[in-house]
Structure formats: C-alpha cells, structure tokens
C-alpha cells in the first residue's frame, strides 16, 4: 500500500507587495508502507509546505495528494485518525501541563487515560506530565508532541524536523524513538535538513530543493548516485606508495595528505599486500565513504542551493 502519494504538487504564495513565491513546484512523491522515509532538503526547500498540504492545513495551488489512499482534498477526515503528525515546532499550550495538552487532543478521538499514560510512558515523560509545558526543554516538548501523535496509535507518522534545535542527547533520543516506531511496522515520514541524522534512521529518502524533487529511492541507491569513491590509504612516503600501487595496476592519486585508490572497498587486502611487498606499511586504510550530505551537495549543485 502507498501511504503517501503526491502528484504534480504546486504551491504558490502571493507576496504582500506583489509577485508570487513558488514554495513547491510540480512535486511527485510516493512513500511506500513501512520503515522510515527521509524527506530531505535545505531550509526553504518546500518540505514544510508539502507537509502542510498533506495535512490539509494549506490548500495546494495545483496537484493531487493522498494519504493512506484517501484524497486529501475530500477524504482526509476518514483517515486522519490513523495519521500522527508534528508540523514544524511542537505547538502546545505553554501554561497547560503536558498531560492536559494530551487530554485535550485525546478527547477529540475519544481516547482515554490509558492511551495518555501509555504515550507519556513511551516518550519518557510520565514523571513530568503534570509540569506546565513552558517548563519543558525543547527536547521534552518535542517528545510531548511525539506522545501526542502516538495517542491514536497511528499507522503513519509525519514528523517535520523532529530533531530541530535539540542537543546531541535529544537528537539521539528522538533517533532511537523513530527507529523503534519504524520497527513496529509504522511508516515514518520525517523531514529534515540534517542529512547525517536522517542517514542513520531512514530506509528511503527523497531529496528536494527549491520546491522540486531531485532524487528519491532507497538510501543505498541514492548514496550510489555519485559512484564508488575508492579507498583512502595513509603511509609515510605517499609518492612511493602511489608508484607501488601503480606497479600493482591499482590506479591511485594523492589527495589531501593521503592516497586515494580508485578501486572498490573490498580490494583493501590487495592494496595492503601490494604496499607490503614494496616494503611500505600503511598507518591507515579505510573506504572513502560517501554520505548523504555529499550526495545532496552534488545533486543540488546545479539548483543554486545555498545561494
């Protein structure tokens, strides 16, 4: 089953002083059931606008969106009970306790105290449930917002920048929570501009820039977009090492105080043996891994991201 289907989404905003801003431009996206789906892009890429359109908060200028097979324009109420969501910063009444905030939401769908307790327990906030939300740290507010999404036991979670503004411990907490929720069979659609963070949790990703889809697919496929990066070798005499590798028919170049051998990572043993036979001993030997950030920058270099 496709959990999210977006076809030709376009959203324009009129500027107060005239003219228009295109936030999302002919975006197509399909999110399959299960796992964590990363929706990546820099600030201003149109991620939040897309999520707002999906949740019926913002009316698209053009395009078709569906959630859990239901058309967002007409049938959103029929599936909203199975969707948990956080849009941008977690918005709660600051003077109410965390529990009271959840009670107000829980009553809308007839959820009782048991569901509230379970949600608070799940995010580790049960002990602080009676404190006013204004006394919560940003991480606690984020966890409370996640607790709110869990009240309905959703099959789809849409989270907009859940790690935004969190300290490293908070990021780890949210990461672990997302992993465990994904492992339960729920589909997690998480937007983020922190690419390294998503790389650690997502199974599939879509990269957007300037409102357009740049690349989508399983993380490994997207990472492979830029091709193999080779193996990094460090040793005392770099030039001697490069010559030895060339004699062994291993193409190599010297870059940034190291040798980069243009072979697959599983050829490390051959590199080590070739150098040892030439009387050279490596101090470091590792695959030249590519991360989402690198892929993202390469994919978006023609889009003018960051201009």
């Amino acid at each position, binding site marked *: 089953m496709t959990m999210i289907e977006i076809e030709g989404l376009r959203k324009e905003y009129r500027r107060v002083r005239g003219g228009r801003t295109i936030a999302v431009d002919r975006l197509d996206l399909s999110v399959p059931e299960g796992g964590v789906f990363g929706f990546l892009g820099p600030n201003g890429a149109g991620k939040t606008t897309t999520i*707002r359109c999906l*949740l*019926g*908060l*913002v*009316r698209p200028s053009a395009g078709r969106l569906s959630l859990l097979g239901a058309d967002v324009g007409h049938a*959103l*109420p029929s599936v*909203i009970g199975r*969707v948990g*969501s956080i*849009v941008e*910063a977690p*918005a*709660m*009444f*600051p*003077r*109410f306790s965390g529990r*009271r905030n959840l*009670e*107000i*939401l829980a*009553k*809308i*769908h*007839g959820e009782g105290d048991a569901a509230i307790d379970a949600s608070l327990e799940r995010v580790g906030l049960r002990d602080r449930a009676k404190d006013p939300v204004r006394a919560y740290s940003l991480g606690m507010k984020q966890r409370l917002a996640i607790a*709110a999404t869990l009240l309905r036991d959703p099959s789809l979670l849409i989270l907009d920048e859940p790690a935004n503004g969190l300290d490293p411990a908070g990021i780890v907490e949210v990461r672990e929570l997302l992993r465990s929720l994904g492992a339960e069979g729920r589909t997690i659609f998480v937007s983020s501009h922190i690419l390294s963070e998503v790389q650690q949790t997502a199974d599939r990703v879509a990269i957007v820039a300037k409102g357009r889809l740049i690349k989508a697919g399983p993380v490994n496929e997207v990472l492979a977009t830029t091709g193999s990066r080779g193996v990094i070798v460090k040793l005392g005499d770099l030039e001697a090492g490069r010559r030895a590798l060339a004699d062994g028919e291993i193409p190599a170049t010297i870059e940034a105080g190291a040798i980069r051998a243009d072979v697959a990572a599983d050829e490390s043993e051959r590199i080590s043996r070739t150098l040892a036979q030439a009387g050279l001993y490596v101090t470091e030997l590792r695959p030249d891994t590519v991360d989402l950030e690198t892929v993202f920058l390469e994919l978006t270099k023609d889009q003018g991201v960051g201009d």
Partner: protein
Amino acid sequence: MRLLRSEFLRARSRRVVPMLVVGGLIGIVIGLGIAAFYAHKPSAAQVASAQAQFQADYQRCLSGKYVGVNQAIDARYSSIEDVCSSAVTPDLDAIMLRDVEQILQHTATFVILLGALLGASLGGADWTSDTMGTLLTWEPRRVRVFLTRALAVGLFAIAITLFLQLAFAVVFWLVTALRGVTTFLPPHLFGDTLATMLRVSAMATAFALVAYVLAMIGRSTVSSLGVLFGYLILFEGVIAGFRQSVEGSLFVRAAIVVISREPILTEPRGFSGPGVPEPIVVMDVTKAWVVVVIYVLVLGAVSLVQFQRRDVT
C-alpha cells in the same frame, strides 16, 4: 460531541476563565461592600412611615392618577398594577432589595465586557499559541471546529455571566438584609430579575460570539478586542452620533433596548400641529433582537468562510 468535550476542557483550562470568575466575584464583594459601608439601615419607624406613604401613592396610582384618565397603558406593561409597581417608589433613603433588577441592568455593561473578553480570549488562544494547526491535524473539518468552538464560547459566556449575576443578586440580598430594606417588593420581582439576568447574559453571549468570530478572522485575541472596541467606540459611539438614521441598526443600541425593554423613540421632524407629537419608534424590542442576531450571524458567516479558505501556516 467528543470535539465539544475537548473544547470544554480547553476552555475550562484557560486561565482567563477562573480569572474572570474570581475577578468578578471580588468586584461584586468590593462594590457591594463599599455600598454596605456607606449605607444605614432605616429605623422601624422610618420604614413604617414610608410604607404608609407608599401604600397611599400606590392606591392613587391604581385609581389612574399617573396614567391619566382614558390614557392607554404603555405597551411595556400588562396592567395598571404593573405600571404602579414601576412608577411608585418608597420614599426612603436606603439600599432596597426591590432595586435589584434596575441595578442588574445598570451593571450589564461590565457583564457584556466580560463576555467580549471571554469570547476574544477563547477564540484567539489557539492562534496565539500556534496550536490551531495541531487541532486541525486532529479534526480537519473546519466547519465543525468553528461551530463547536462557537457553541463552547456561547455556553461558557452564558454560564459565567449568569453565575456572576446570581452571585451579585445573592450578595445584594445579604447587604439589603443587613444594611438596607427588604420590604416594598413588587409582585413579580423574582421573575423580572431572572428575566433581566437572562437578557443580560444573552447580550453578553452575543458580544462573546462577535469577539470570538473577530478573533478567528484576525487570528489573535488582541486584534479581536481592538477591532471590536474600535468599532464600538469610534463608529457606534462617535460617527453614528452624527447620523441618527443609522441608530436603528447599531449593535450597542440594540443590546441596550433588549436589556432595558425600552424602545428607542425619536420626535417626528417638522411637526407643527397642535398637542404633543406622537414619537416615532426607531427600534423596538423585537427589532433589537433581530439586529443583534444579524450582527452575530453575518460576522459569523464571514469568519467561517475565511477560516475555511485561508491557509493555516
């Protein structure tokens, strides 16, 4: 029904609700406490003398003295007894329980302001806290959200304003029992007082709903109160004063007519015949109710349409 329960819990949890109730109670106690402090309980002889005078005046009134021979009774009254109960008052310098209905009419302004404050606060809170988006991701049917919240605002306004008026009446009764006079009561005092309370609460609810729909349009409590009071003061208070032709369409005038049950009358222009000219009714009680309902419904419809169509960002 679930959404209404949620709205009740949300409204009940707002600080403004206990603040208004407690503030209102404190105001009642302080106001009537000051009145009690400066009042003096008349002696039994003073009361007896006033009673005798009152009975005599009342009998004279029943004989038609005050309405005049063959003159029709004002439409506000159902009988000559009603006329006399209103027209004849005891000549006694004291706080009297019989005045409670009149005092409630005079304090209606505060009750209505309280209603407006409540409506603006309950309507604007979600926008100020940015929680409207959260709410709509739980209940995307905006018409339902709008109408349910309006119902909650209305019910809260009625309940709180009625409670405070009842509290006022009880404290006033205590003050008159201790420091004033509880005799000379007109025959329908209880019913009339209750009816006045209901009319005042109805008008407070109308103002609460108007403030609520303005808060939904302006997306904040402050904008709602600013627009409401700006309109009431600048337009209805100043500009409308220069154009009497619009007087029959004004919100505040209509609320006053509903509460006091006294129509707005005006002298006919260019009257030159003999005798007293028959006054023209600018706004009677029925029209006043219609004007109030139209204000609430029209503003409500505008607010609902824009809430339905505008993006929540």
